[in-house]
C-alpha cells in the first residue's frame, strides 16, 4: 500500500483535463455533483421494483427523524468516539514509527519485511483477541480501529519520508540542525502530501474497521444499529443509517483529500 498508494494518489493531481473542460471550468464540478444526483434518481426509479430496498423519500425522512427525535445520536456518538480515539491512537504510534523507518536504513531493513509481510492479513481477525482481552465495548473497538489505522499510516509515512531530498538533508546537516529541527523544518514539510496520503487512507480504513467491528460485536454504534435494523426488517431505518455512514465517509475523505491537494500545491 505504501509506494503504490502514493503514486496512485500523486496521479490524481496530474489529470490532464480536455481542452473543453479547461475553458469551461464549471463542467467538472457539475459532473461531480451529477454523480450522486444520478444515483439518487436511479434509486428513485429502481426502488419500487424490489421490496428489499426502501424508496428514497421514507429513507431520508427516517434519517431526518433520527436527528429530530434523537434516536441516532447514541450510535453516532459511539462510532465517532471509537473512530477518532482509535485513529488518534493508531496515528500517535504509526507516525513516529513511520518517520523512524523512513529515516533509518537499518531500522527499515529490520522492520520493513515484517510490516509488508503482514500487510495481507485481514486485521479484523484479531478483533476476537481484543474482545477476549477487553470484553465487548468501546476499548475493543477502539483497539481494532487503532490497529487498522496503524499499518497504512506507518507504510505511507515511511515511504514518504524515504523520498525526502538528499540535498535538503545535507543542507540541514551542514547548518548543524538538530534531529528535531531536521524533522520539523525540513523532512515533514517537504513530504507532507505523502504523509497526508497515509493519514487519509488510515482514516478510511479506521472508519470501515469500526463499522465491521460493530457488526461483529458491539454494545452501541452505527454498525450495530444497521445490523439490528436489518434483523428487524426495518429497511428505511437501515438505509437511513447506511446513507449517513456513506455521507460521513465521503465527507471525511474529501476534507482530507482537499488538505492533501492544498499541501501538494504549496
Amino acid at each position, binding site marked *: 500500500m505504501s*509506494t*503504490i*498508494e502514493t*503514486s*496512485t*494518489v*500523486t*496521479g*490524481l493531481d*496530474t*489529470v490532464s*483535463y*480536455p481542452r473543453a*473542460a479547461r475553458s469551461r471550468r464549471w*463542467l*467538472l464540478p457539475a*459532473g*461531480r455533483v451529477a*454523480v450522486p444526483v444520478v444515483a439518487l434518481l436511479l434509486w428513485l426509479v429502481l426502488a419500487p421494483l*424490489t421490496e*428489499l*430496498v426502501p424508496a428514497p423519500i421514507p429513507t431520508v425522512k427516517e434519517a431526518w427523524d433520527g436527528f429530530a427525535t434523537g434516536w441516532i445520536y447514541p450510535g453516532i456518538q459511539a462510532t465517532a468516539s471509537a473512530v477518532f480515539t482509535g485513529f488518534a491512537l493508531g496515528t500517535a504510534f504509526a507516525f513516529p514509527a513511520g518517520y523512524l523507518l523512513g529515516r533509518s536504513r537499518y531500522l527499515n*531493513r*529490520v522492520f520493513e*519485511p*515484517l510490516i509488508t*509481510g*503482514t*500487510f*495481507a*492479513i*485481514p486485521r*479484523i*481477525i*484479531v478483533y*476476537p*483477541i481484543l*474482545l*477476549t482481552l477487553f470484553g465487548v465495548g468501546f476499548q475493543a473497538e477502539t483497539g481494532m480501529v487503532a490497529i487498522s489505522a496503524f499499518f497504512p499510516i506507518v507504510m505511507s509515512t515511511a515511504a514518504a519520508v524515504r523520498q525526502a531530498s538528499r540535498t535538503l538533508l545535507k543542507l540541514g546537516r551542514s547548518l548543524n540542525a538538530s534531529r528535531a529541527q531536521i524533522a520539523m523544518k525540513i523532512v515533514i514539510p517537504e513530504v507532507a502530501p505523502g504523509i497526508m496520503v497515509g493519514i487519509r487512507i488510515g*482514516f*478510511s*480504513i479506521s*472508519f*470501515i474497521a469500526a*463499522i*465491521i467491528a460493530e*457488526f*461483529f460485536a458491539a454494545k452501541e454504534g452505527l*454498525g450495530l444499529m*444497521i445490523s439490528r435494523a*436489518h434483523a428487524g426488517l426495518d429497511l428505511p431505518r*437501515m438505509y437511513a443509517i447506511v446513507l449517513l*455512514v*456513506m455521507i460521513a*465517509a*465521503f465527507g*471525511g*475523505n*474529501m476534507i482530507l*483529500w482537499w488538505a492533501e491537494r492544498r499541501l501538494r500545491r504549496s
Partner: protein
Amino acid sequence: MNRTSSGGGTLLLRPPLVRAALVLAVVAVLEAAARGGLVEPLVMPPPSVMFARLVEIVRSGPFVTDLVVTGATVATAFGLGGLVGLMIGILFWRFPFSGAVFEPYLVSMYSMPTIVFYPILLAVFGLGTKPIMIIASTMALIPVALNTMVALRAIPPTLPKLARSLNCTRLQTYRKVLAPAAVPMVVPGLVLGFIYAVIGTIAMEFILASRGLGYRTGFFYRSFEIADMYAYILVISIVAIIVNVGLNYFERRIRRDMQ
C-alpha cells in the same frame, strides 16, 4: 558525519537476525506470560498450545473445506474485481473527463462500508459465497482501477506518436505499445487488488458467512474455544503472509522482465 567506508557491521546485528530474534522474543514472552499465569488461558493460551492446535487443525477435513471455500471466493472476487478495475482504469484514461468526475468517489470507496449492500445481494444471489465474492471484488477493483489509470496516464506521449508514425492499427497500438509500457505500473495495482480480495473475503466471512476461514475464527470466538480461535488466526496470518510473499516475488519478476 557519514562514514564512507563501512566497518562491515557485526554479524549479530544483521537485520534478518535481529528481526528473527525480535519475533522469537515476542513469542517467548507470550509463552512465559501464559505459562506463568500472568495471562489467563481463557484470554490467551501459550503459543506452544496454539501451534499444536494449528497442526491438528490443518490436518482436519473442515479446515481443508474452509480453505477451499475461501480460496475460491478470493480467486473469483479477484478475477471479477481485477477485470472490472482494469476496464474502469482504461475508461478513465481514455475519457479523462469521466476520470476527473469519478475520481473522488473512487478514492472514497476505500472507506465505503460496502458490506451494507449485503442484504440486497443476499436477496438477489441467495445464501452462499456469491454476495461475499461481490463485496470483496468491489474492494479489489479500487486499487486496480486507480493504478491502471495512473499507469496509462504516465505513458510518455511520444509512444502513441511513434505508433501512429509507424501506421500501427488500433489493436497493434494497444497490444504492442501501450500495454507493455503500462504493465510495470499496472501489476502493483493487481497485486494490491488481490490482497484486498483476500482481506475483503475474510472480513466478510468473519461477520456474515457460515463457511470459510474468516467465519471459523468468529465461530470459535463465539463458542469460547479460545485455543482454536488463536490457531485459526495464526493460520489465516500464515496463509496471508505466504500469499503476500508469493505476490511480491511475482511482481518483482514481472518488473524485471519488463525492463
